[in-house]
């Protein structure tokens, strides 16, 4: 059996890749995709622990996360379409209206 640590490492690596993607990329769609990555890393964690602890709760939560991710993607894409319609761009550097 593959030890728990490996899953956790995989999950951590995925999360870091996602986080770095969110921080470094300018394209809104890519950022959205990076967030998906981070969510999925969390899902892997849940499933891994579920197996490790012999409890179904983690798996149920994983399904919950997938649902949330789906709705998030839908809303996120809708926002991005709206943004594109407004400024003809989805580059986040063009959206700094909250600058103090």
């Amino acid at each position: 059996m593959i030890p728990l640590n490996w899953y956790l490492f995989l999950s951590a690596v995925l999360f870091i890749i996602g986080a770095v993607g969110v921080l470094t990329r300018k394209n809104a769609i890519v950022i959205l995709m990076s967030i998906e990555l981070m969510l999925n890393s969390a899902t892997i964690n849940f499933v891994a622990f579920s197996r490790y602890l012999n409890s179904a709760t983690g798996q149920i939560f994983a399904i919950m996360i997938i649902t949330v991710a789906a709705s998030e993607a839908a809303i996120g894409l809708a926002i991005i379409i709206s943004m594109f319609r407004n400024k003809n761009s989805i580059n986040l550097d063009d959206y700094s209206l909250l600058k103090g």
Partner: protein
Amino acid sequence: MDLVFLIPLFPALGAMINGIFGLFSPSYRKNHKLVHTVACGAVILSCAVALWVIFDFIVLNRPAGNIYEKVIFDWIITSDFKTPIGFQIDPLSCVMLFLVTFVGMLIHIYSTGYMHGEEGYYRFFAYLNLFMFAMLILILGNNFLMMFVGWEGVGLCSYLLIGYYFTKKSASDAGKKAFVVNRIGDFGFILGIMAIFTIFGNLDYTEVFHSIGTHKAFLLSATPVFGLSVVTVITLSLFLGATGKSAQIPLYVWLPDAMEGPTPVSALIHAATMVTAGVYMVARCSPLFQMAPISLAVVAMVGALTAIFSASIGLVQNDIKRVLAYSTVSQLGYMFLGCGVGAYSAGIFHLLTHGFFKACLFLGSGSVIHALSGEQDLRYMGDLKSHMPRTYWTFLFATLAIAGIPPFAGFFSKDEILFKAFTAEHLGNLRFILWGVGAIAAFMTSFYMFRLVNLAFRGKSRVSEERMHHLHESPANITLPLAVLGTFSLLGGFIGIPLIPGANVFHSFLSPVFGGHSLAATEGAGHESMALEIVMMMVSVMIALAGMLLAKKFYIVSPEIPERLMNKYKIVYTMLLNKYYVDELYEKVIINPCEAICRFFWKWDDKAVDGVVNGVGKFTLFSSFLSHIWDEYIVDGTVNGIAATIEMGSKAGKKLQSGYVTTYAFIMLSGLFLLVSLYLILR
């Protein structure tokens, strides 16, 4: 008699129409014909109603008690003070009513000729009508308050009309003088009225005079004022009012100056009607005066003194109107002398005849002035007889009347006064002095009046070439009133024929007013007094004739005599010419100190009172400045300081708000990292 309210109403309406339309409509102002039609129409209507009322009173419906009262409405109503607007007709007001409306009407007609083409024609007639209104209120009112209203009203109109040529300084000064001097008298009048109200609780003539009996004890009780009785103090206050209005010593100074007004005004207001208001008032209050022998003596003495005093000034004046003015003052003195010796009806009789002949004299002088294009100096007249015969004859009639030559009006009235003064036994030996003074004044009157006639109408002409050119007899609307007044001067005396019992119609007509208390000496008197009266009459006539002849001698036969006398008695002459320096005396003794006091108070006001006020202002200003500093630097400083601090903090925080999602995400993650790290480390 119910129509009595119409008598003052018509002139009031006339004054309002002329005043309001004239003020607001320039085209109405220029329409002189309309203006004088309204004014004269009002007075003629008023006169017609007055004549009807008098006729009604005397012949048709003689009311019981000879007093007819009509209350129109209640004027002032408070808890204990109630005064109606009401009219009273009795023989006394009948006489005044006839004089005022009739002479007023004639003078209105005269004015249409005299004031022809004057600037402010409408103003003149509005004032004149207003005067008629006030005068009629004065004589017709049934209580003291209405008399006072009329009294002040005529004073106002007198002021306005004296200052009619207000662009002339002397005229406006004269108006002010008249007003101020009158106010001094009015002060006494007000005091008298207030005292009457306090004692009687009422101001109605009939009520007051009927309740004298119930208040008798109090009226005769002594007051702290020199120990005089209450009624004496009241009557003396009232008499002070009379001296102001009727130009008696010491308040006569305004009347000669009042001649600055147009001549019809002098005739109407300052000779025939307004100035007699004081005599009317004394006669009206005769029941009160009768209780105060001291007041009566004062009235008689002031009257006699004024008569001789102003007559002597009149001897040397050169201004035709001034001579007449002093003559008016002197004749008013006679009237007061009559009232003072208790012969009220004689005083009123003289008032009536004087009203006619003095109005005639003034109007005649106006006619002369008009013909000579404004010349008033007697030294530049002479021989006007041949140029203006109508004026001359009427003037002569009136002169004969004032001089007291029978059968002209003045003879009857003046003689009656002198006779009454001579026989006023309650005055003791004072009566002889009064009579003597009156007789000398009568001589002077005769002299200066004939001097006037001789200088103006007879002798050689001294009129300047230029004026001679315009010299003409006046038009009919001037000579007609003169003729009417001249006729009255001739015939007016016959309503009061002495000696024959029952022939003195005037006296018996007035007796209901004064009857109860008048010291009637002649009515039904014995043979001795009859003989005395005849002697007195002869003396009067002789005095008058002497004055007349002396004037003839001085000014026609040998004109060098007055010249010589003038040089010989230079001091007397200059003193008379300068009116005994009374004006200068008043200026020094009263006006200048008054002015000094005023100045002092002004200084006090300016420096002390204003100083305090300004000091407070300055203090306030200074404290506001301090408060301003505190506010600006401390309070605002605190507020602004807080704001600045916050701003500075915000500026630092602002940097965080880059607006880039990436930055926020980075901060969020690093924060999370930090928290988790801390958690792990500190666990």
